[in-house]
């Protein structure tokens, strides 16, 4: 593996994480689409909504991560993909806006009718977005994105047999993943009826996703021969087998109601197929453009990799903390403790040195800012001005709040 391939590994890891975690969120939207006023139907939708809560935002940052690494490490590839596949990506973008907005709105709904409108927008966009992104992947995999500024066909690059199949696989596997994860969450909070409901859904969607994947084989054989050849030989074939084995194992685990291990095997099934795609296409990113040729210069690659590695030192423990809190049920509604009474400390004298300090900072900052030309002294001046704002705020806001005795506007 060369240096030029390291960012590609990062992109693939990001794609796999997005397909699994973001995919489960898309699927949770899918399961909110069916209506029904019965208590069970409502409970299913509520559960699908609430399970996403704390991890929702983080799951979607993976997409940003993929885009950013792509345009930094393989800028011409990013420019080619974004311009030729602009329609598919724009549709995905619209879906992302609608989903995010609907998600933010749901907490404000009061009547069942309002809630259904929001859920329907959320559900439809949860199908639209993975389909459009899957179709874009299909365009890349079938060699329909040439190098250059909008050099490919704006429509057939993503509306073609391979794209349609990969879009369908994306939607089906998202719904499948979500059902498995929601069953596991329901089991954790001890809701038996929900466990049964999502177990059934997981089994059905598991078969549907498998059938779509099998159905895709002849299509890819006819429409995208190079990727077919890559997937049916060598490492590509191994990845396909790994994915199929993990998918079957997941079905068996779900059948046995062992959802926690099923979470992991389902993730492996999705990740393996992404790895298989990369292995099948290796060493090409786009027709005629290899990874080595597309990669940015050494200096860019090294700073990017070092930057991400340093970031990962903060990111990995933070993600672990979040998922640990969620998966151990610390955020479940049942676990809410009443607000702990906070004992008030004895009141302190209000006079303090803060105001004179704030005034001093303001003077020093303004002088450094106003009378000096050096950029660095100006920046130091700006820091003093920030210190003025911070100290001034603490000096003024607390007593102002505490002594709110006048009540006239």
């Amino acid at each position, binding site marked *: 593996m060369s240096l030029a391939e390291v960012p590609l590994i990062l992109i693939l890891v990001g794609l796999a994480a997005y397909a699994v975690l973001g995919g489960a969120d898309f699927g949770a939207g899918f399961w909110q689409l069916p209506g029904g006023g019965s208590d069970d139907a409502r409970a299913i939708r509520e559960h699908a909504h609430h399970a996403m809560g704390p991890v929702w935002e983080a799951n979607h940052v993976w997409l940003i991560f993929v885009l950013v690494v792509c345009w930094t490490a393989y800028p011409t590839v990013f420019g080619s993909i974004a311009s030729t596949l602009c329609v598919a990506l724009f549709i995905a973008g619209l879906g992302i806006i609608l989903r995010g907005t609907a998600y933010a709105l749901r907490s404000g709904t009061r009547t069942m009718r309002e809630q259904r409108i929001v859920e329907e927008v959320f559900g439809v966009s949860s199908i639209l977005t993975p389909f459009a992104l899957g179709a874009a992947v299909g365009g890349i995999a079938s060699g329909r994105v040439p190098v250059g500024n909008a050099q490919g066909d704006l429509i057939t690059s993503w509306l073609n047999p391979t794209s349609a199949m990969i879009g369908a696989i994306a939607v089906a596997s998202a719904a499948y993943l979500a059902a498995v994860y929601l069953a596991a969450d329901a089991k954790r909070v001890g809701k038996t009826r929900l466990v049964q409901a999502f177990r059934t859904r997981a089994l059905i969607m598991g078969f549907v996703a498998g059938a779509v994947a099998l159905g895709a084989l002849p299509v890819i054989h006819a429409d995208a021969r190079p990727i077919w050849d890559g997937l049916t030989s060598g490492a590509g074939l191994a990845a396909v087998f790994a994915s199929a084995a993990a998918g079957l194992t997941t079905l068996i685990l779900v059948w046995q109601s062992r959802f926690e291990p099923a979470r992991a095997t389902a993730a492996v099934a999705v990740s393996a197929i992404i790895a298989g795609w990369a292995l099948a296409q290796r060493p090409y990113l786009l027709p005629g453009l290899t990874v080595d040729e597309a990669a940015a210069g050494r200096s*860019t690659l090294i700073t990017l990799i070092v*930057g991400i590695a340093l970031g990962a030192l903060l990111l990995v423990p933070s993600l672990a903390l979040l998922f640990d809190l969620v998966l151990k049920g610390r955020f479940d509604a049942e676990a809410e403790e009443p607000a702990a009474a906070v004992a008030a400390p004895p009141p302190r004298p209000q006079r303090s040195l803060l105001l004179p300090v704030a005034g001093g900072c303001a003077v020093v900052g303004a002088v450094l800012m106003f009378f000096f030309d050096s950029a660095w002294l100006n920046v130091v001046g700006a820091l003093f001005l920030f210190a003025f704002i911070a100290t001034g705020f603490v000096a003024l806001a607390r007593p102002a709040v505490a002594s709110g005795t006048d009540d006239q506007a």
Partner: protein
Amino acid sequence: MIAAGHLPLATIVAQAFQPVDQNYLLQARQMQALSFATHIPLVCFGIAFPAMVVFVEWLHLRTGDPLYRTLARRWSKVMAALFAVGVVTGTILSFELGLLWPNFMATFGDVFGLAFAIEGISFFLEAIFIGVYIYGWGHLSPRAHLLSGIPIVITGFTGSWMVIMVNGWMNHPTGFTVRGGQVVDVHPFHALFENSYFWHELVHMYLAGYMVAGFMTASVYAWGALRGRWGRYERTALVIPLTIAALASPVQVVVGDWNGRTVADNQPIKLAALEGLSKTTKGAPEHILGWYTNGEVEYGIKIPNLLSLLAYHDPNAEVQGLDTVPKRDQPPVNVVRFSFQTMVGVGTGLALLGVFYLVAWLRLRRLPRSRWFYLAVGAAGPLAIVALIAGWITTEVGRQPWIVYHVMRTEDAVTGASGIPVGYATLALVYLGLLGAVVWILRRLARAPLDLEESARVAG
């Protein structure tokens, strides 16, 4: 597997990203501008609102007063809703960089991409701790919960730092060499971190974030006060954001002056466009209002020597005119002038309001009682957003016709894809709906009944 081309690679790529003939360049720029104008006010809340929420929660831990807990919890719901909308509008922006400007990304992505990678990590941490903070109420110990808010405040800063560093680089590009039409010898670290041309923008934007979030939040409660909603809860909720915005707004005047001088030194044509100065002049005047035609500002109020004084702190300094560069290298003067004057005018008004409030508080130890004060605070929030957007138009349109200053023209960066007007119209409609949705949810959250009694009972 895919047949390789037989031309040398550099030739293939150079040919593939040649400038294209795009009939809808203006629409592409407007689509990008619409997306920024939607996203930037939300960014302000991302920068400043978490600090206010965490401060209020800290007050609760310090005083035990349940009112602060209620306020922090209610504000954190607003924070979550605005963050969710900010995430999606930000995602659209990162899509659009490629959808609309593929040549820019293909040519320079490797130069500035590092900043976006760090921004991505920063944003990731922000999203993680927003999740912990919002869902952690009542599930974490009070101290742990407060601590989980701190990373949100820090990452709000680092994220905007990285994005503005890229904007600073676009205005003052370094860290690469152009050789035979190819960008070579790329040094991202040098281009970004050793490029000092972003500090003034960062400080200016960070203060703007506190002004927008502070005035906007205060203005909601000021309107409430005018309608008689004016208890201890509302007063607290007005004083905290208003104090921080009032402190930031006079500082912004000093920082704005610094920005003007930095632009004068590095982008003299942008400065000339701010005033509409066509010829190089010693002791250049400044015109308030007016309209720029045929190389002159007509119908404006002329203030002699003001431009020289502002740009170089010397009333007789020479200021470079627009005609020192060919017409095709000049930005559209009236757009830049009008936005600049809007920003300065509104900003000055906000600074005066801020100083009035601070002086009133220091002298009287209470809030002003005049109805006019509450009307002014009520108007200050929307006006702060106007000034924010006007400021961004000033610097971004003032950069035209360059996307990378003096290196790549905007027209050479644009996509060759057709259908930009369709995309623009669709996005405009969707964002109109988004605006309606945001207003709707904020009103719903504001109207939820106050639960002071409940929290008072709980807190004993």
